[in-house]
């Protein structure tokens, strides 16, 4: 059945590549149907625990193409197909005459199919093939608006980083396969690599999957490429493709690499925590709506990597309960982030569609003109800020429980790391709240800052439906987090050999319990019920007791209301305190005010300098080095044949002498 659905996606891609005009709109209903079918198959495998495996006689000679749908693949399949479904429904709302282009529609189902293929691949060749297909399809989608130089630059950087990532994965699978070259995952599992090789494989996997997921310092392409694509594709890239990257790391580190060693936990934890904080510091200073969302994706990927690192640490110390809490946090965050980030990107797409702008300082007041989009976006913004009772908090709570349990690990490095990790995660959570209050407050609240924002309109029904569905999932996922955690049990068992305490161990059926009910319980429905009762009681009581009259009047603003919307706080002014507190450290941000002397008629100037040290150190400097080196080596292109022969002969001699010394 899933084969049929994947086939349908491929056929849709093929047909869309041939057709032009309104017929392209058919792509989205077909993709939605295929996503539903695949999702149902995944769900059945996850719930029944019955693996499905297939071997096709294509692929590498003698190996064939192995496919397998186990609990882990099924879980990630659900994440993927949920995102594809939402993006497809959103796509159905596109204007048939104006918004369909043959540069996007054929690639959309191809991208969806490639992501599905990655998670069901059961040998290295199939994995790398579908991984590359996914990269190239998304690259082509990024470059869809090729007339824009920004898009071209983003696509170029993306292509380079994707190539580096795939090369690293190639090494990882080479190491896993060993000298015998067993590329099927079953063979790898049966012969786990030597400790040294395993460490190298882990590093390679971290580079390969981290570059796709946006782990710092491999993140630079992501905030350029994700926003450059059409919004529903951005939703897929940020909400779903980064999860495929997480899948790759989980598959390698927890399944193929054999029993973990405790220090494997350190690189993902340290890089993840840095990514979480820095990602948000970038986000909170950026003024482009979609780029802010992309930076926040980096943060969430960092949070997931921290959780995965903790799971590795617990697992290596033979503490399956702690590992299960950390792994459940990681997997639930994968699911939750795919929902709210897709929602937010679709919302950003709706804003872009309605106003044609994505610069926060040109928006404002959209809650009046796009009430439904505004309501859905609000749910997403609160969910991503990890606020209860929405879904983002469920995974955040589990992760904090895992961090709080980490001092019980025997290694001193992990002791010292745990408070630092806890503080960095708390900082990330608080920054996320600040970031999304800023985004929502400037884009949707206040007064419109431009004519486009003042003349915005609500988006088509299909797009509202896609956002509304995701918003509903964010709310339900928050209330029913314990149910989702129970559904994860087979995946947890497969990866770390442990599980969360069941729903019957807590005070009520919907209590989320970490470790032990006497230790930590979070009961979202009870809290939500209490808040609902309390706010309704207050509403009724206050309206009985109080003067019910409400008058509309001009804003008070301390007695000096200014009719110009330019006097509102903008996204830049909102970020100013944060820039002074954190930016001065992280980006050596400096503000200068040039105030002309009294009597001077020149305008005063305010300028801010922000230095992206990561870009300088990891991209600009190596880029310059490569360029310089290639200019030096350019002479090699213009030698005579005689000299080439001498060079080749010398190389041969050197190699032979090395070989002679080595043996």
């Amino acid at each position, binding site marked *: 059945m899933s084969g049929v659905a994947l086939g349908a996606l491929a056929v849709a891609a093929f047909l869309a590549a041939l057709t032009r005009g309104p017929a392209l709109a058919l792509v989205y209903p077909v993709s939605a149907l295929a996503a539903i079918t695949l999702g149902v198959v995944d769900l059945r495998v996850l719930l029944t625990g019955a693996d499905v495996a297939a071997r096709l006689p294509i692929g590498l000679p003698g190996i064939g193409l192995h496919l397998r749908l186990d609990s882990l693949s099924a879980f990630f399949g659900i994440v993927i197909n949920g995102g594809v479904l939402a993006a497809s429904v959103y796509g159905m709302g596109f204007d048939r005459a104006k918004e369909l282009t043959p540069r996007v529609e054929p690639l959309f189902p191809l991208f969806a199919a490639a992501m599905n293929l990655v998670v069901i691949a059961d040998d290295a060749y199939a994995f790398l093939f579908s991984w590359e297909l996914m990269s190239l399809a998304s690259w082509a989608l990024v470059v869809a608006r090729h007339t824009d130089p920004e898009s071209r630059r983003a696509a170029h950087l993306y292509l380079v980083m994707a190539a580096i990532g795939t090369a690293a994965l190639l090494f990882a699978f080479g190491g896993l396969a060993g000298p015998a070259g067993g590329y099927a995952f079953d063979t790898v599992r049966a012969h786990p690599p030597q400790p040294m090789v395993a460490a190298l494989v882990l590093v390679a996997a971290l580079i390969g999957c981290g570059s796709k997921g946006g782990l710092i310092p491999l993140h630079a392409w992501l905030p350029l490429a994700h926003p450059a694509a059409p919004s529903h594709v951005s939703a897929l890239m940020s909400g779903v493709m980064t999860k495929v990257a997480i899948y790759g790391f989980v598959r390698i580190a927890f399944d193929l690499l054999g029993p973990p060693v405790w220090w494997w936990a350190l690189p993902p934890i340290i890089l993840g925590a840095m990514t979480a904080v820095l990602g948000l510091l970038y986000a909170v200073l950026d003024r482009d709506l979609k780029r802010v969302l992309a930076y926040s994706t980096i943060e969430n990927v960092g949070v997931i990597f921290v959780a995965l690192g903790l799971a590795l640490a617990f697992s290596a110390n033979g503490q399956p309960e702690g590992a299960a809490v950390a792994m459940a946090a990681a997997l639930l965050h994968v699911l939750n982030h795919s929902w709210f980030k897709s929602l937010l990107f679709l919302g950003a797409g709706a804003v872009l569609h309605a106003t044609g702008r994505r610069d926060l300082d040109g928006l404002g*007041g959209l*809650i*009046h003109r796009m009430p439904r989009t505004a309501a859905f976006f609000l749910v997403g913004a609160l969910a991503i800020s990890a*606020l*209860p009772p929405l879904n983002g*908090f469920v995974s955040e*709570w589990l992760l904090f*429980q895992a*961090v*709080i349990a980490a*001092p019980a690990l025997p290694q*001193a490095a992990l*002791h010292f790391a745990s*408070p630092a990790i*806890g*503080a*960095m995660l*708390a900082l990330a*959570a*608080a920054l996320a*709240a*600040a970031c999304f209050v*800023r985004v929502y*407050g400037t884009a949707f*609240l*206040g007064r419109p800052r431009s004519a486009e924002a003042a003349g915005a309109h609500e988006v088509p029904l299909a797009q509202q439906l896609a956002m509304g569905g995701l918003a509903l999932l964010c709310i339900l996922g928050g209330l029913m987090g314990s149910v989702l955690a129970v559904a994860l049990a087979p995946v947890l068992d497969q990866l770390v050999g442990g599980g969360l305490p069941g729903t019957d161990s807590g*005070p009520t059926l919907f209590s989320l319990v970490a470790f032990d009910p*006497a*230790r*930590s*319980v*979070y*009961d979202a429905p009870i*809290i939500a019920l*209490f*808040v609902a009762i*309390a*706010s309704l009681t*207050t*509403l009724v009581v*206050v309206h009985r007791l*109080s*003067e019910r009259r*409400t008058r*509309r*009047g*001009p*804003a*008070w*603003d*301390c007695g000096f*209301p200014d009719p110009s*919307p330019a*006097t509102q*706080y903008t996204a830049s002014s*909102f*970020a*100013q*305190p*944060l820039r002074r507190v954190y930016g001065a450290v992280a980006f050596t941000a400096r503000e200068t005010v040039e105030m002309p002397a009294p009597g001077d008629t020149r305008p005063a100037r305010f300028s801010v300098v922000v230095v992206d040290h990561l870009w300088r150190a990891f991209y600009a400097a190596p880029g310059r080095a490569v360029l310089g080196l290639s200019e030096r080596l350019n002479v090699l292109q213009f030698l005579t044949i005689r000299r080439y022969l001498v060079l080749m002969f010398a190389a041969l001699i050197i190699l032979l002498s090395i070989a002679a010394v080595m043996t």
Partner: protein
Amino acid sequence: MTRDLLVQLLAQGAQMSFVLLIAPLAVGVVRRVKARLMRRQGPPLLQAYLDLAKLLRKESVVAESASWLFRSAPYLIFALTWVAAALVPSFASGLMFNWAADVVALVALLGAARALLALAGMDVGTSFGGIGSSREMMIATLAEPAMMLIVLTLAIAAGTTRLAGVADFFIAEPFAVRVSLALSLIALIIVALAENARIPVDNPATHLELTMVHEAMVLEYSGRHLALIEAASHLKLVLYLSLLICLFAPFGMAPATAGLYGWAIGLVAWIAKLLGSAALLGVWEVSIAKMRVFRLPDFVGIAFVFGFLAILLAFLTRGVLA
């Protein structure tokens, strides 16, 4: 069984009403102590109740550019803060719904109330609303990591993140004085000052434009909406005072198994400690000046450093580093 359930339900309801009823009194005590120390007459102790009643009787003026978020936020903020306040053990540790949220969830509930308030501050589209929201969120980013470290220390000491469990642990071992707990106490006091917009972080008694944080956010509110916001900030003060009392001075608190008699003692002890700490807050507020906004990172940074030291000492006392 049914009777037990009813008693438990009543006790939980009692706590919800107690925190609500006593909150304005605690604020009145702070104001009164401050006024007397400055040799002023000061408002009557019950002035905060009268203010709320007055605000409820007035009509609400809502700015023309305000949306539904502006009008519904006060109810949600009040409800979230009220529920959070009701979840902190006050006179008894084993109340019916104390288990529903541990301290991590409690902090997050307050975070939700804060985010809504900051959004409401930006809704009208004035410069003051924005200034308040942006500073409030900046202060939160400083306070939350420190709070997380405090939680971590408590969890290491008591082995649980449930407040009732931590309180029970301290009731059971009241005399085990630990340096790490003293450090966490200082850290938590600083966090509480920052979260409640008290001096030196913010001055609740001023409308001086350049220093406002909390007041700037709620500048556009009036009538019943303002009453709810004010009541919520009173509740938040009681919540943090109760939290400090429950964690660092839990004596007198009725343990989980106590009967009505124990509850009565617990109630008297809680009210006495609450009003006593409110008086201490008043003394603190007259003895220190408000800080510039950009000095705050240093002040809240102290909480962070103390929180970190507390954890390292907690490791040492447990011997895990030896």
